[in-house]
């Protein structure tokens, strides 16, 4: 026997008041979208504040759970058995066969928890709990009742149909992607930025991404690596529109005209400016970076402030307070770590002065940027007009 349906529980959406239906609909849409990649036919339905997924054909249980685990907004997944309401005696029979079927080892404590969605059902919940508890105890003498901390919480929901479930698989939490606007992720080939994108997407934000490519200083493989990373993040965030910007001429121009120790910070400021322009064009309202305080010279408080000053958009830095290890842990969990550590140079690692400024003064940076006046606008325009877009 196989579970033929799933009860999808959500957490935060429940408190959304009048807009709640919008969030629910977004979640239903996400579930439908994700299940398209899974073999099998599924019906996703929204019924009195709950979401049910029913399989209409054979399917692979693990594959479906894996798909659910990537959908933000899902707090928990309960695989369940759904039976027709054929009277109280039949219900008892179904519950017994459920326990028999799904618990090979019956040496556990349990509690029955009944909810009557259908208030017209002739027997009340308390009575059903008692009757079913007794029944299970008699049928399987190894079981014990524990009403405080049961090993197995046997849920019986009486609605138009009867739902029986007892397993709860945690989901990723968060909010359905697309319910909280769109932001532009500055994606490098490193460990941090994919994690940052994942974390913001978890809050229901749809993400686009931008990568700064500097051929021949950075290779085609480095670019492919970023495409691969965007694809990995898109497993959670939905499709990502990756903007690949050719940054070489801007970088070399800065290198020629500005003090080398300020190269990184000025380069970051131009990345922010270009990302902001691209964000505006694609309807994104904020930027996302993988910066964390103090990790490198360009991520000191002063450097972050100088970078921020280059854009008027809010800049989200979800890993700002994380240690490297904490970021690594998330990247391992979401499956981006192995790709992130492939050894290809990106322009943040290759154009680095020996002693970059760690406490840039915004005034000084702005003064250095004045050296760029002659050509920089033109170079930025060219970079934006030659952006390569890839759906990931």
């Amino acid at each position, binding site marked *: 026997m196989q579970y033929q349906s799933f009860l999808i529980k959500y957490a935060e959406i429940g408190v959304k008041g009048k807009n709640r239906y919008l969030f629910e609909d977004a979640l239903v849409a996400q579930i439908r979208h994700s299940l398209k990649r899974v073999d099998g036919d599924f019906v996703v339905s929204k019924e009195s504040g709950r979401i049910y997924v029913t399989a209409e054909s054979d399917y692979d249980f693990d594959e479906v759970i894996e798909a659910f685990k990537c959908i933000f907004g899902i707090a928990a997944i309960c695989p369940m058995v759904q039976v027709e309401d054929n009277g109280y005696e039949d219900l008892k029979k179904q519950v017994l066969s459920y326990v028999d079927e799904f618990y090979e080892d019956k040496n556990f404590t349990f509690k029955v928890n009944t909810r009557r969605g259908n208030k017209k059902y002739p027997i009340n919940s308390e009575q059903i709990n008692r009757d079913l508890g007794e029944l299970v105890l008699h049928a399987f003498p190894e079981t014990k009742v524990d009403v405080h901390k049961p090993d197995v919480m046997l849920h019986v929901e009486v609605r138009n149909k009867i739902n029986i479930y007892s397993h709860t698989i945690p989901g990723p939490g968060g909010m359905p992607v697309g319910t909280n606007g769109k932001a532009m992720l500055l994606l490098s080939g490193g460990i941090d930025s994919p994690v940052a994108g994942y974390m913001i997407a978890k809050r229901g934000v749809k993400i686009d991404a931008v990568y700064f490519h500097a*051929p*021949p*200083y*950075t*290779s*085609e493989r480095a670019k492919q690596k970023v495409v691969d990373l965007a694809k990995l993040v898109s497993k959670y965030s939905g499709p990502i529109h990756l903007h690949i910007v050719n940054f070489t001429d801007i970088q*070399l121009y800065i*290198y*020629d005209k500005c003090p*080398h120790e300020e190269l990184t910070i000025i380069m970051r400021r131009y990345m922010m400016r270009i990302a902001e322009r691209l964000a505006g064009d694609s309807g994104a309202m904020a930027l996302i970076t993988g910066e964390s305080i103090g990790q490198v010279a360009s991520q000191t408080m002063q450097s972050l402030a100088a970078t921020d000053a280059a854009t008027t958009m809010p800049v989200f830095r979800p890993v700002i307070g994380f240690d490297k290890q904490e970021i690594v842990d998330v990247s391992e969990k979401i499956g981006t770590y192995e790709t992130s*550590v492939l*050894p*290809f*140079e990106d322009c943040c*690692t*290759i*154009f*680095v*002065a*020996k*002693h970059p400024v760690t406490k840039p003064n915004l005034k000084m940076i702005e003064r250095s940027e004045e050296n760029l006046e002659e050509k920089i606008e033109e170079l930025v325009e060219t970079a934006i007009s030659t952006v390569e877009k890839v759906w990931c």
Partner: protein
Amino acid sequence: MEAYFDNSATTRVLEPVKDIVVKIMTEDYGNPSAKHKKGMAAERYTKEAAEIIAGTLKVAPKEIVFTSGGSESNNMALIETAMANKRAGNHIISTGIEHASVYNSLAFLEEQGFSVTYLPVDAHGHIRLEELEAAIRPETILVSIMYVNNEIGAVEPIEAISKVIKKKNPSILFHVDAIQAYGKFVIRPKRQGIDLLSVSAHKIHGPKGVGFLYIDQRVKIRPLIYGGGQQRGMRSGTENVPGVAGMGVAAKIMYTDHGEKMQSMIALKDYMISRLSEIDGVTVNSLPGDFSAPQIVSASFLGVRSEVLLHALEERDIYVSSGSACSSNHPAVSGTLKGIGVKPELLDSTLRFSFGVYNTKEEIDYCIDVLKELMPVLRRYQRG
């Protein structure tokens, strides 16, 4: 114009090689061990290939064992002779400039209790015979030295090496990694005192995933792969018939009019070296003429990182290899370049140009033009 100068990594297959591979895959696809005539047809291909290859080395066909390529040949030659001869001793001699498939096999043997002496090389990449002689001990069972170094093209004095070894102790086995040498040099294992010789097909315009190991019939060795007993039990598994036959055809072509072919390759190499000298700040690490392999030119470009230059050339359809793989995350500076004393500031600025039968002088001219154009641009930016 496209210029493929990465023939020491791999080569484009020759047309007749492609033809026979396709023919065997689609028509004569029998299993050489099968008893019916489709099987016999397949067996004939492997027999013919063995005869051709044995003919190029003037050895017996039964001394040729087909493998999946150079790495397998090196693994088998080292690990399986060491294991088979460990009662005679546990000492092995090799050099500091070997390929990873030799290195890592030796590292495995060290874990198994063998001890290995790695000989250093001089500025041209040659080992010193007196150091070899001094390294030989009573418990030495095996010496493994490459014929042609894959990074700079240095040619080791194989015959002289074998004389030194055999004079001290004729029962010490001499393995030669000839992966960059076969097809370029006339190799005579019997005369040169070579007991085992590794070769890979895709370096001589043959298919990938196939190679062979020459094993002198007196050598005590164990198989690396056990199974149905194919190839006289020395290497089980159904033979890669299309690959083997393709390798045979490639070997035959490479050794037909061999002298002329090599003369024109040496001419290409010398032309490349002379034209590189037109560019400022370029140091050639390979010797000219027949002092080193005819197909390899290693050169260092002061002030430019090899990876950057490689990608800049690639944008213009010129394909080369970086002399040493190095990146910010995984510094892996080449043992060979260090070994021959390339200056530290040039280690990460070295490219390898390697030629094949398809290359032309025009491609070299194109490459030099592009380098002349690129170097000043790329030198503008130097890592701090």
